[in-house]
């Protein structure tokens, strides 16, 4: 079963455990500045929203790359950057409509979420289940369940 990251901002507390976990596994240090998942705090609205690559099927970044450094991982469906092929031209960062692929000044390559090869660290790190890794065919299941409950008129 192919799986997909599923984000529920209402559960997020903005603790950044996900950013720390992401940077730790990918960069070897706790370094939110280098995290591939970012949590945005909309202070005046009192909202925290985690955001990262959704692994588009026909990924803009992959299509745009002139040296084919971004490839489909057939197992988990992620679009992975081949660091040794990437030339750091940043065209993919322009092509991606969501801003989720970014240039890393210390390596001269781009980085993006690769679902940690099928076991995303942010998911294990999140204390509130704001990020889960679920069946890619049914990311809306929990919302459907919530609405389904409301349509139950048994008690009416």
């Amino acid at each position, binding site marked *: 079963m192919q799986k997909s990251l599923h984000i529920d901002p*209402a559960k997020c*507390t*903005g*603790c*950044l*455990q996900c950013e*720390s*976990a992401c*940077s*730790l596994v990918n*960069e*070897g*240090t*706790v*370094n*939110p*500045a*280098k995290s591939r998942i970012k949590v945005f*705090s909309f*202070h*005046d*609205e*009192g*909202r*925290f929203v985690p955001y990262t690559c959704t692994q588009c099927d026909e990924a803009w970044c992959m299509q745009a790359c002139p040296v084919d450094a971004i490839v489909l991982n057939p197992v988990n469906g992620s679009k992975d950057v081949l660091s040794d092929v990437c030339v750091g031209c940043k065209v993919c960062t322009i092509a991606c409509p969501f801003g989720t692929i970014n240039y890393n000044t210390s390596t001269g390559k781009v980085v993006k979420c690769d679902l940690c090869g099928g076991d995303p660290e942010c998911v294990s*790190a999140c*204390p*509130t289940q704001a990020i889960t890794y679920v069946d890619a065919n049914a990311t809306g299941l929990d919302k459907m369940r919530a609405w389904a409950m409301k349509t139950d008129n048994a008690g009416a």
Partner: protein
Amino acid sequence: MSWTRKFLRVNLTSGAITEEALNMQWAHDYLGQRGLATRYLVDEIDPACDALGPDNKMIMTTGPLTGTIASTGGRYSVVCKSPLTGTVACSNSGGFFGAELKFAGWDMIIFEGKAATPMYLSIEDDVATLLPADDLWGKTVWEADKMLRQKHQDPQTKIACVGRSAEEGCLYSAIVNDLHRAAGRSGVGTVMASKNLKAVIVRGTKGLGGIQDPKRFLQVTKDAKKVLADNAVTGQGLPAYGTQVLMNVINEVGALPTRNMRETQFEGASNVGGEAMHEPRKSDGKPNLTTNGACFSCTIACGRISTIDRTHFSVKDKPEYWINSGGLEYEAAWALGPDTGVDDIDALTYVNFLCNEDGMDPISFGSTVAAAMELFETGAITTEQTGGVELKFGSAEALCWAAEMTAKGEGFGIDLGLGSKRLCEKYGKPELSMTVKGQEFPAYDPRGIQGMGLAYATANRGACHLRGYTVASEILGIPEKTDPLESDGKAGLVKAFQDATAAVDSAGLCVFTTFAWTMDDIAPQVDAACEGDWSTERMMEVGERIWNLEKDFNQKAGITGADDTLPERLLKEAANTGPAKGRVNELDKMLPEYYQLRGYSTDGSMTDETRQKWALPS
């Protein structure tokens, strides 16, 4: 390692900024943050110096677990001599500023001297620069935050800033970071402003590596997070209600200080507690509480994110306050509410916003207003001083007005900025000040919780609940239940809490974890992260050493055992309702045993023997 092993020294007089290596011997003896910075302070300033003069220093300091994935590993402290108490000041804050300082590669910043004109410090990893802050001076924390973000064009910068109250000399001004987290107590913001330092902004992109045993650290921090998640207080109570979970509990046990601590129960408590923050309001059907928020790395997330009712008198013409921001936590809600007799949750939230916006400690502010209200009642203060305002217990209007005036440092707000002790002295009624060593009480009446009387009397920064929170044992049964009305056996309990807390603070962790964690949960995390063996015993030992170092600083600053006392009201006037009815605090029964356990002389002074035992600097 987990310490970055280097710190910044910023001389504001000369403008020189230098990098120095961390004294690792001291790190081994004092761990970090509170302990380590106090060691530097003791070494570098004369304890008798003028707290608001250039000879005082101000240290922003992190712990070895700050910036790690350990739950709540995001804290920093500000250490200096306090202008409010004359003791050592150490105020702890969460948010994201402390971790960012670590990510920029620094354990601490020592500020010394005084700038000739307003400045702010900008840190981008290795590069630290002092920049002019003339345009920021006179601005609130929230305004300055906006201006700095605009100027530096970096939305991810973390900012710690003082407000107008600090500039105007309010003696309990805080340093506010991330808009609504504060190094709140003892006037550390006043010290910062006295140095003409408006803000510190940090961007760290280097990250934190060098964990001693990364694999074990992952495992022990994971185990420890599970302990927090499975605990009823840290797993459910705090996320749902924040520290406000305590309001009704403390009222019921008859230990909710009310109307300047005249009474011990408040009839309006349920209107301003954690449950009330969930109640939909009439005007728009929304509750006061929008959501809970966490500090860096915190898996508890006690933080309150709240709004004020837009139709409330305090904000109905001020759309700038129709936003979400940091809401009421228990100590603030108590000081602004029960202690002033006000049970209007929107007024309390508004004043809490102002305390964040202009950097005032809400505990000291609320308690000072409470004292002013009693002075008004006795006629010592009249409408002549207040400019016509009826400063009466229970008046939400008066409370809001007082906050606005103190935030700006105008009119009667200047008097309120003196704090309760100096205010009551000024108006000839020192006995009405509910303070220890000049610092206002927090939200637990020591007539109903006996151990807290001793904890307040002996706390090294004046009355404070965060130096030895025996409420955990006496009320909540953590780690084991003791009788709150019994003073017997409390000396040992207070000492144990004081020592443990000093170690927790110094690690860079939040003390709220100790509702669930014991030192046996904490020590392995420090041990896996840091070089050397950090057993439970060593942590307790380090905690006790830190306690005595602080005590010794105070003694050299001229504080004596005679200052280890409580206001007469708590020692002589019995509680009139509730479970503690008929009780006073039995401090005199607890103090001698406490001094003995601490190895102090019977008059409460540090002995040479104890000083030697802990190898304290002479």
